[in-house]
């Protein structure tokens, strides 16, 4: 603009040279706004706000030692998980409807016998859990009864079911929130487990 101004004879309207520049602002400002609005709308409309990313990814599993539910001889401790190699930890409860939906998949996984399936029985009456497992079958390698929910809080559990993938070093690698489906298992979790095992 200054260059143009130097060339224009004195007394010529300054608006003449500024005009293209000003027009550019009228294009750029709405464009910038549109981009911002698009980004915000994208963030607002996609993804699920009810799924909070876990703070424990890439961290060691929390220390705990939980008693068994009545009728089962072993509880579950962090030492058990660390010694078990690559594994999954499933947080469940008999009062949790969606847990019933994913239960058959856990039975299938247990039947394949490829890795330990640890159970964290979250805020459940031990007797209710025992009845639930007696009725539906027990897919778990070992189960810890977390009646108070304290261990669940250490794991950042805020709803059941939740499923964690643990590597051979006892680190939390992945957290799945909500019902685990066959598709989740085949497409996300199984490839991850294969990677961890190799």
């Amino acid at each position: 603009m200054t260059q143009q101004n130097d060339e224009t004879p004195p007394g010529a309207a300054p608006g003449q040279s500024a005009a293209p520049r000003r027009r550019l602002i009228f294009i750029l400002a709405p464009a910038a706004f549109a981009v911002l609005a698009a980004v915000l709308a994208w963030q607002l409309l996609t993804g699920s706000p009810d799924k909070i990313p876990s703070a424990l990814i890439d961290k060691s599993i929390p220390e705990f030692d939980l008693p068994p539910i009545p009728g089962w001889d072993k509880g579950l401790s962090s030492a058990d998980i660390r010694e078990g190699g690559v594994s999954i930890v499933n947080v469940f409860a008999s009062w949790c409807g969606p847990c019933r939906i994913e239960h058959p998949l856990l039975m299938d996984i247990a039947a394949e016998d490829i890795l330990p399936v640890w159970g964290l029985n979250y805020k459940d009456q031990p007797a209710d859990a025992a009845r639930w497992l007696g009725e539906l079958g027990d897919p778990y390698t070992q189960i810890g009864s977390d009646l108070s929910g304290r261990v669940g809080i250490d794991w950042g559990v805020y709803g059941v079911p939740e499923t964690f993938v643990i590597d051979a070093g006892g680190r939390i690698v992945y957290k799945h929130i909500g019902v685990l489906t066959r598709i989740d298992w085949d497409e996300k979790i199984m490839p991850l487990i294969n990677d961890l095992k190799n």
Partner: protein
Amino acid sequence: MRAALLVATVLLLTLLGSGAWAFSADDALDDPVLEARALKLHDELRCPVCQGQAISDSNAELARDLRRIVRERVAAGDSDDAVFDYLSDRYGDFILLRPRVKPTNYVLWFGPALVFIVGVGGLWMFVRRRRGPAAESAPTPLSEAERKELESLSRDDPQ
């Protein structure tokens, strides 16, 4: 006299029943100072289940458990920051209703001020440029020919 006493009693009960004296299902800490701190912290923490609410507002069972944990930490002598750390280690920054000032949150904290400064700066430049040249450069003096023409025009005026 009896009526006055009754009114006074009702007033007293109303006062006791309001605000900080509210009766809750939670077990309050015995030390009122610690309890007040715990209650303040409850307002600063988000309930992971019912996400728009602070744990102080929520009836969710997890919120109740978290309130209890905050009380425990406070009673154990944790500072406010230590309590926040304890919970954000487990539930992430998501649980803090007041985001922390740290590099990943700089855009959140300072973005609006930056946008404001850029906006004001842009407006200032825009206004200056519109006004500037006209105000700064004095009108070009009339050339000799123009001056003569102007004079002849005013002289020729029939009136």
